[in-house]
């Protein structure tokens, strides 16, 4: 998948992470992880992306409900199809970051910017203030963080229609 080089002096810190054997759903829909070196499967684990924005495809931490790391999954390809499906569906299910497709309305009043947007999750109106609300991940990709800390991703500024681009020009 990606080149995973590591300096020798650092390698030992990653070496002792248990291997993921299988991941499945429990009865109540919780995630159950079978890990190497453990007799019992870990029930009700939480999956957390290490790099939710810069590398959303790989790097998943498998943690207990109260936040202790059990294992690290760098590459989902090592999993069998069923496990992989569980991981992907769980990550999708427990993350909500709509991707902006089109800007429908834009207004700025009293230092608060309000945007009505069409996203892959439906239409939404959100408000943000100040420069901290916009994070550029690349010259054309950005995340807006609204006043409630919800995030909205703009995957590619250049892919927007002309009207939407005009609204957002100032941030790029």
């Amino acid at each position, binding site marked *: 998948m990606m080149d995973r080089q590591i300096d020798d002096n650092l390698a030992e810190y990653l070496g002792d992470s248990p291997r993921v054997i299988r991941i499945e759903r429990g009865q109540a829909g919780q995630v159950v992880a079978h890990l190497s070196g453990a007799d019992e499967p870990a029930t009700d684990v939480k999956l957390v992306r290490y790099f939710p924005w810069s590398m959303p495809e790989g790097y998943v931490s498998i943690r207990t409900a109260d936040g202790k790391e059990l294992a690290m999954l760098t590459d989902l390809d090592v999993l069998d199809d069923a496990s992989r499906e569980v991981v992907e569906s769980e990550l999708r299910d427990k993350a*909500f970051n709509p991707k902006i497709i089109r800007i429908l309305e834009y207004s*700025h*009043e009293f230092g608060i910017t309000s945007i009505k947007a069409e996203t892959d999750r439906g239409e939404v109106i959100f408000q943000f203030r100040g420069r901290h609300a916009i994070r550029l991940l690349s010259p054309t990709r950005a995340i807006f963080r609204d006043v409630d*800390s919800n995030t909205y991703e703009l995957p590619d500024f250049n892919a927007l229609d002309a009207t939407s681009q005009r609204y957002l020009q100032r941030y790029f």
Partner: protein
Amino acid sequence: MGSDNDRPLDHLPEDLVGQLSPEVPAGDVVAAAPYDIDADGMYTEGYLVLTADRLGCFQRNNGQWDTRWLGAATIGRASVIDGLGMKVLRLTRDEELLAEYRFTLRHAKSAARIHRQLERIIGDGEPGQDEPDRPDEKKLRCDKCGRVIPAWSEMCPACMNRRKILFRILDFGRPYIGRAIGAFAVALVMTGMGVAQPWLLRPLINQGFGAADGAVPDYGVVLMFVGIMAGLMALRLGGQILQLRLSLGFGTLVSRSIRQKLYTHMHKLSLSFFATRQTGALVSRITQDTERLWRFVSSTVIEMILAVLTLVAVGVCLFVMDWRLACFTLLPIPLMMFLMIFFHKRLRRAFRQMWFRWEQMTAVVADALPGVRVIKAFSQEQREVDRFQQRSTALFNEERRYISGARSVFAPLMLFASGLGSIIVWLVGGWWLCQGQTDVGTLMAFQGFLAMFLRPIHEIAHMDEMFNRAATSAHRIFEVLDTEPAIFSRTGATKADDIKGRIELQNVSFSYDGIRKVLHGVSFKVEPGQMIGLAGPSGGGKTTLVNLICRFYDTLEGRILVDGVDVRDYDVADVRRKIGVVLQEPFLFHGTVAENIAYGKPTATMDEIIAAARAANANDFILDFPDAYDTIVGERGQSLSGGERQRISIARAILNDPAVLILDEATSSVDTETEKLIQEALERLTADRTTVAIAHRLSTLRRSDRLIVLDKGIVMEEGTHDELENKPGGLYARLLSMQREAQSAIGLAGGVTPAGGKPEVEPAHGPGRGH
């Protein structure tokens, strides 16, 4: 925020309330929360409504409400899962999933509230009192229109009634109303005199210079009119001085009373008020906003009235003098108005754009300079320079656009437009003059009047902005003044005069944000004179507990008793006077060492101050300072090391003689000798006093009568040091052995924390006097 507590149905759409009301009386609803993500992860509109015995779920579907009721008795467990950008409320029963509801973070607070009530119903069989109102916390959205409230404001700028607000400011001026009326009267007379000046030009030129038909120059007439003009000028000089004195004086009086009232009120508000706001914003409210009001009250109001009066008066004069010429002369006025409105908008927009780039550039500087040590250590100077240059260029480009666009065109165009008036007078008036229909004096007077037009027009064009600005400032001030303190003394509050110091916590829970609980059902007792050590990892809730005992905040659930009486029943100031606090990073005010020691007891005598300093082992180092007890400390004063600050703070507490002592021990390492001195001082301080110590030092831990080990807001262990030390598998035993390892590894005697979990080994700031 408080209102959703009292009337949970208020935030539901009307048609849903209508559907609910026949079967569920509003009084039965314990909590309601909107949820906005459906099972497929798409936006939706849904609501949860909780009564004492069931949970209703309503999701909008083509104008109908899809309804589902769940009996509370069938729910075995309710949990909230934190996702990325969302919360999930999961209801299960014996390994079986009953339902999941998904919320964006906008509704996190109401989700947490409904979750808390659900847990209570599942646990105790009935809902409980939830979350105390904190009216002085900053609101995120306007209650009326739902707009987000800007950081600089207290209330929705769109909903505020500007006129009402401005009248409220003037209300502050009522005691000084005489000055205001005087200033206005003088201003009125002055306007009249101002208009008279050009009017006099006509007879001066026509009769005095002999420009009219059949007239001959007459120096006597010239002298007379020049004399009148000079007299008027002298009168205006005097009038202007008088008017400014009156109006500026009126403004200062008003702004003084607002400023003082504001600051006094701010100090009545509780910690949650300050915790949800930036200090800078509060400072500017007292300084900038009152200054702006001063300007508004003392000059803007009068200038506005004068501008309108002048325009009307000049207009009337023009028409009376020669109505035909006046019609032509006034032609450019609409053009000027249009230019102002047109450019005003454009300039504002361009300016905002520029401001945005400017902020981005400032951010780079503000970020880099405090970290200059790290930049140098990793030799990343070039990267920082590049980052700055990129932002600086972006700003430059924006500025260039601004300058070449509206900025460089606006002012010259305005001058041109106002010059048009003169041209018209010469052109049209000149034609009539040649026809013998008018005279030179009239034309000259017209020119004089035209010169008086520009300023009032400019002022009226900016009137909206001026009023808005003042109204905004006024609003920011009034919102603070109208904020009720969250922590206040109840009427008939108990006096706390002879508190012995018995403290009891009964099932105390707390949350700062109403979403995440930081204390869960904490209970313990401290007898008078006892010392309790609070230990546990950082983030365990130790500082929060201390905040509650001092009553900086009120509990979410449960109560705190001091000498058997609920702390909320005491007079706040009274009970705080009986509680002494020694913080780990004590704050020193700008002032002398002696003043800082006597901060809590300004009446202390010199002897008392010295005695307290001696007891705190601070006397010796204080005498080493250049001005001994008169040395200035605090900002820009003598810098003190951590150990010295701590001892000053101990002296402060000893002097104050509190019944209950809160000790937030420092985690930073000090040398062995200093450590010993501090220990001694602490022993003197805590003797015979009820002490609750956030304990990091082994010596304190050992000396405590009892230790309470907190982790994630839950009391994990309780007992004496010896008991807990030997408890197999105990959290405290583990922390302790970690501390000992750390100590032997680093070779420090007693500074490193077992409890704080932050080993303070910072090579850059060793002990000793900083800087």
